[in-house]
């Protein structure tokens, strides 16, 4: 067929632009959709994701909020319950703690405890992660922590396609979906199909196939892990890299299929080590694929410390390619 030979037209863009395009597209598609959060309008978004949208859609659809994380997140939840499709932007996950009661005690519980009478189709976006030297109160990676909560879904777009495509699918979901955008990705540029659109949110993706070890990660750490995989390849180690994409629910099938093949795994996660998402994934592998493992599972997480300001200490706090390489080699007994 002719169409198969036609390559989709590609455009140069950035993660930030892709995220913006997703918001624009959603507002145009569905009149119930609007964006609300601190400085999303006049300021243009603290990471400039929504820059220009106020001019395009006006202050009702691009709603600046006061500094009231609990209040406006709760308002987004209420508006969703009443049939709207709000995109609530909490500037960063660090400030979302102020809204956590609304997220956990209301958004996550309402459908079940009302016996399925009410649902909360809200999407809550937040920036996450370290790397910009913003120190101890601005560098948390708590997406794995959120993944502990039944009743919500948690997404972590790592690629331009996902930054562009996950939002609409999340908005179509009848339940609350949290989207975590790693701060280090906003400037990432690359090419994206001009007609890129919604993507599924229920499958992990194998970003690099390999045979010797499974490196399982998501979000900002994906790129460090791919870099590590390249280094490993230079040493003759063929790593498979899995991008989880959805942190809740986790796509166990893709993880187990990879581990069944490679028989070894390292999990890379920017959360603090103890109680990290990496622990959950490791435990699932033990539960579901113990007999297929040829070695202990490794993990590369953040050090257990409030992230410090200086570059060298911040770098040392969070996962980096060399640490991933070392962890992989340790698991392979080649340390």
């Amino acid at each position, binding site marked *: 067929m002719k169409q198969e030979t036609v390559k989709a037209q590609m455009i140069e863009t950035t993660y930030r632009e892709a995220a913006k395009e997703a918001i624009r597209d959603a507002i145009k598609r569905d009149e119930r959709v609007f964006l609300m959060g601190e400085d999303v309008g006049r300021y243009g978004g603290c990471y400039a994701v929504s820059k220009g949208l106020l001019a395009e859609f006006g202050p009702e659809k691009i709603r600046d909020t006061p500094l009231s994380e609990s209040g406006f997140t709760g308002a987004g939840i209420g508006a969703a319950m009443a049939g709207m499709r709000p995109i609530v932007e909490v500037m960063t996950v660090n400030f979302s703690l102020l809204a956590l009661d609304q997220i956990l005690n209301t958004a996550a519980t*309402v459908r079940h405890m009302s016996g399925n009478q009410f649902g909360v189709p809200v999407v809550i976006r937040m920036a996450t992660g370290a790397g910009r030297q913003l120190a101890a109160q601005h560098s948390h990676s708590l997406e794995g922590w959120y993944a502990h909560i039944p009743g919500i879904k948690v997404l972590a777009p790592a690629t331009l396609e996902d930054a562009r495509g996950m939002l609409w699918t999340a908005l179509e979901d*009848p339940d609350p979906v949290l989207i975590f955008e790693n701060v280090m990705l906003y400037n990432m540029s690359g090419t994206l199909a001009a007609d890129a659109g919604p993507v599924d949110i229920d499958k992990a993706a194998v970003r690099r196939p390999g045979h010797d070890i499974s490196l399982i990660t998501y979000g900002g750490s994906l790129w460090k892990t791919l870099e590590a995989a390249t280094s490993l390849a230079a040493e003759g180690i063929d790593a498979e890299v899995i991008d989880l994409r959805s942190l809740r629910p986790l796509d166990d099938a893709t993880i187990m299929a990879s581990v069944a093949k490679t028989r070894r795994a390292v999990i890379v996660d920017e959360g603090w080590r103890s109680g990290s998402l990496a622990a959950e994934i490791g435990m699932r592998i033990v539960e579901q694929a113990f007999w297929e493992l040829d070695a202990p599972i490794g993990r590369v997480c953040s050090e257990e410390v409030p992230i410090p300001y200086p570059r060298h200490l911040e770098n040392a706090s969070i996962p980096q390619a060399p640490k991933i390489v070392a962890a992989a080699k340790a698991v392979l007994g080649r340390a």
Partner: protein
Amino acid sequence: MTVPADKPHLSREHMLALLKQMIRIRRFEEKCAELYTREKIRGFLHLYDGEEAVAVGVIPVLDQRDHIVATYREHGHALVRGVPMTAVMAEMYGKQEGCSRGRGGSMHLFDAATNFHGGNAIVGGGLPLAVGLALAEHMRGGDAVTACFFGEGAVAEGEFHESMNLAALWQLPVLFVCENNLYAMGTALALSESETDIERKAACYRIASEAVDGMDVVAIEAAARRAVHAVRESRKPYFLECRTYRLRAHSMFDAQLYRDKAEVEAWRHKEPIIRFQTWLESNHIIHADDVSRIQAEVDAEITEAVAFAEAGTWEPVGELTRFTYAESAPPPAR
């Protein structure tokens, strides 16, 4: 009893209806207390004894399309709103015929059919939600009102402040109804607020307000009419403080060490049912047999509700995790 001259609805029928609703709540809850001691009802049970005039005065003034957000002390609100007593009682039992499928219990009555958005057991937790329901209405250009009930204890929570500010700033149609019963569990108002005149809080956010005797169902109804009318017309929030009193313990686990019996007794003399009934009788609007008829009707309804709850069934354990998420998967991409 305040009876404003301009009351259109002050017919005998209407007054009987008000009385009946209060008696309905009172007797329903008395039955619940009894069922609690018999361990038919478990968990926390917060009675509304003494405060019935608030729900009865406010809720019937609302329209079918309006929304309600309540607290864990919400049996009265649900009943007055029209959630069938059978479904409420079955919910108290935890039976799947209950208005929340039995999963919520006393603190989490929900009913989509009457826009009854729960039953929230986090103090102050319903306030942002109410702002959101009103925001949706505002954005759709509808004229529904969202009535949000909460205790004076909730006023100390940050969520109160954020919600009042948002509603006023964005001019959202929220009717804030503060049920000031002077105590938050064992904490007297004076130990909770530096400004104990709760109505004044509204002015801090430039929200119109009124305080009303929360023991006087007629006064509350009149105030609620003004309030609902103001919200519906202005599309702005309004704050109604109902000054009332909780005559019983906070919940079934409360030795009431924090207040004098004499104080409770003094308030018992002001309680809304006897007060209204006495006034109606002394004005010859109703007669003793009206009351006994109401009681008989209510008792029959309660008996039916208990029978319904008793006959109800337990949700199968296999359905435990059902509806943690919606069952219809989201449509595939594109």
